[in-house]
């Protein structure tokens, strides 16, 4: 079957429609470029009734919202796919672990993410200078700050000015008031000498323009907002780019296989499989922006071999796929007897937590490098599949019968409803050259494309950090006056440390740097080896702080897009 050539040549082909691809779409189309956006999944618009997950009741789903291989986070979560995608496997090297969450749809994972929107601070770009581990970024906070400011204003984020050195303030919308269980956390944390501040989420507590509504407090940001009152790449970047009259052509269900190059090694476009007719197409473009997510971008680059780029495009350093790293994670929960038999009222609030603890021990000498922040969860949420399982297990704690049957089970469920609170740490790992993804030579997906194989192991830095998390959790949760649930995970369980990939902050596979022997892109996200290819997802991250990566992906994609426009104007590309 021959490859079908596109008739026209686009100025830019953008591979992926998540945070980075969305931002590139907006900025580059507004600069007058003729843009093609290729997305491996279907179109998605939460304002359309047929795509709507928001404000649905559990009984609308015959499986009552349970998770499945089709949606790992449940029927009403907005992310199609998840840990497994039928027909598109990945593998892991025996003895190593990696969990890879992918969402094939317009907007990608930005449709369901937690909206935690934290700026990296000055220390976060220069961690090697602090602890001697890993590498510094080739840029610093001052380079990115103007773009963080612009992202805040364009997209909207609530938070408060706190003047904490490594937690830079921004242009904030006002935060929502804390919920009851969050006040229990605030009190306990302060008693333990741990700071708590209003959380920083990209949810509109006020309107920021006439195109998007303000939050109506259903607590369902993970389901994608029909009022466009939270950030997702489709609703906040791609749709506005289309409405703005920009030349934006969307190619959905377009699975990009490789970046094509000419005899000089310069990119000429991309080859993709149209999932609807299973045919291969060549889309011609003068510039290619890779924003397929850190690992998918690495996969496409490694699959783009040619006589000039023999080890894959951009891979003369051998580093494409290397320095892959995810956040650390660990959790603990507590039963708070004072919250039993609560008065029930609507406390859905915004999606996610209203309060959180930023890392507070930068100045302290600890037995592990770098830090973590603490997230809080609990409250009187909407039941879905799994609610009511083991309805009276907490009778273990309060005294009373476990198990049984009859009307008393109703009372048990109501008694404990909203009485459990939990906290989770999300921390910074130290990037390792030997943690990587590569092409698996034995496996292709259903489109014939070689798949990724992961090789990832935590080091003792991350394990010791998880131990510190557990000690902190125990201290704070005991200070709530409640009863801690489950055993404290010890060394035998790596202190409850999540498997690599599970926090879904995977970054670093095409890291940036000034030396092309030691990095894949330059400090403007441009491949050292191929000047008309940029990487605008989280691949170029040198390290990722304990902060969720999205706000930094957005800021760097905007910065890189500005640079790209300038380079084209100066005829350097």
């Amino acid at each position, binding site marked *: 079957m021959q490859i079908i050539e596109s008739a026209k040549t686009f100025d830019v082909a953008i591979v992926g429609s998540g945070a980075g691809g969305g931002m590139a779409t907006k900025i580059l189309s507004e600069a007058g470029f003729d843009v093609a956006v290729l997305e491996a999944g279907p179109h998605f618009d939460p304002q359309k009734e*047929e795509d709507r997950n928001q404000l649905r009741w559990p009984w609308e789903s015959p499986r009552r919202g349970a998770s499945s291989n089709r949606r790992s986070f449940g029927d009403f979560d907005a992310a199609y796919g998840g840990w497994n995608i039928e027909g598109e496997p990945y593998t892991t090297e025996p003895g190593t672990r990696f969990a890879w969450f992918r969402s094939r749809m317009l907007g990608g994972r930005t449709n369901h993410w937690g909206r935690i929107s934290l700026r990296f601070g000055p220390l976060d770009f220069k961690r090697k200078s602090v602890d001697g581990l890993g590498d510094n970024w080739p840029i610093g906070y001052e380079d990115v700050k103007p773009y963080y400011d612009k992202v805040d204003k364009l997209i909207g984020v609530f938070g408060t000015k706190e003047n904490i050195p490594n937690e830079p303030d921004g242009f904030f919308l006002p935060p929502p008031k804390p919920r009851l269980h969050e006040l229990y956390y605030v009190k306990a944390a302060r008693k333990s000498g741990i700071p708590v501040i209003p959380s920083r989420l990209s949810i509109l507590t006020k309107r920021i323009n006439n195109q998007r509504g303000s939050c109506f407090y259903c607590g369902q940001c993970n389901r994608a907002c029909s009022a466009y009152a939270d950030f997702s790449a489709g609703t906040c970047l791609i749709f506005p780019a289309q409405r703005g009259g920009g030349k934006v052509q969307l190619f959905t269900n377009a699975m990009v296989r490789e970046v094509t190059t000419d005899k000089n090694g310069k990119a000429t476009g991309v080859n993709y499989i149209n999932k609807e007719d299973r045919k291969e197409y060549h889309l011609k473009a003068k510039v290619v922006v890779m924003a397929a997510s850190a690992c998918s971008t690495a996969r496409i680059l490694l699959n783009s071999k040619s006589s000039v780029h023999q080890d894959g495009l951009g891979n003369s350093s051998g580093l494409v796929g290397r320095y892959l790293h995810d956040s650390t994670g660990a959790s603990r929960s507590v039963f708070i007897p004072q919250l039993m038999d609560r008065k029930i009222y609507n406390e859905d*609030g*915004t999606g996610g937590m209203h309060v959180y603890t930023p890392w507070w021990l930068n100045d302290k000498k600890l037995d592990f490098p770098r830090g973590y922040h603490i997230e809080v969860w609990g409250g009187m*949420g909407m*039941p879905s599949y799994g609610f*009511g399982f083991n309805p009276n297990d907490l009778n273990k704690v309060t005294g009373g019968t476990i198990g049984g*049957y009859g*009307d008393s089970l109703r009372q048990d469920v109501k008694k404990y409803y909203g009485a459990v609170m939990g906290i989770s740490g999300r921390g910074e790992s130290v990037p390792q050259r030997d943690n990587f993804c590569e092409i698996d030579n034995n496996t292709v997906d259903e489109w014939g494309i070689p798949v990724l194989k992961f090789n990832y192991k935590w080091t003792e830095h991350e394990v010791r950090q998880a131990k510190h998390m557990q000690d902190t959790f125990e201290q704070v949760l005991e200070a709530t006056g409640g009863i801690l649930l489950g055993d404290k995970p010890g060394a035998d369980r790596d202190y409850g440390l999540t498997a690599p990939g599970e926090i879904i902050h995977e970054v670093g596979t095409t890291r940036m740097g000034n030396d092309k022997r030691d990095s894949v892109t330059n400090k403007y996200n441009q491949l050292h080896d191929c000047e008309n290819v940029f990487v605008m997802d989280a691949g170029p991250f040198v390290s990722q702080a304990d902060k969720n990566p999205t706000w930094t992906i957005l800021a760097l994609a905007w910065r890189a897009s500005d640079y790209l426009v300038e380079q084209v104007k100066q005829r350097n590309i």
Partner: protein
Amino acid sequence: MDRRDSLKSLLVGSVAGGMLVTGCAPETKTPHVAPEIQDLPGYGRNEKEKAHDREVLAEEFLTEYELETIAVLVDLILPANAEFGSASDAGVVDFIEFIVKDMPNNQLPIRGGLAWLDIHSNKLHNKVFKDLSVEEQKAICDSIAFPGKTAPELIHGEKFFTRMRNLTMTGYFTSEMGIKDLGYKGNTPGVWDGIPEDVLAEHDVDYDPEWIAKCVDQSKRMDIAEWDEDGNLLT
């Protein structure tokens, strides 16, 4: 109309006619899709998911007889009270009929567990479980419903009962009736403006005035945000 037909008509609901035309839907793997099976009322499914639901709805797993026993059991687990109906009134039998097909790892434990229950009933009373008197049924439940107190020879019954209790409780509390019973008040557009004062008064925690002063003034939530150069909100 038997239970299974009534279930199908319930799921198909009012959109049955309109959904008959499925010509543009992807091919399903099941060659013998029963003609009366159409899509469920929409709940935000993509095409792959619609195809999956169609396949599952077309399958049959539990028999009429098994479903009748389940109906008896789930109403023992969660009977009606003065205010609310029983588990089966809330649709739990239909939920279980679906979920064992959708989550096939339930199939063997539930089929085998139901058979265990009948064997045990036959042993005691020479009758299958659903034909026992309520007192006899409850006596059997008493022997398998309390983990940690079960006689060793009945441990398989306990495992089955625990599974059925979990499915019953989750099926009930995710139904319209169960959510009303629970009293959950959300999933509706509104404005969150903090914990009600009477609730706050009952707890040994307080709003810090300095913190609250920074929070959103809900009377200005529709005003478009503007800031000064230092990031101070002006509106």
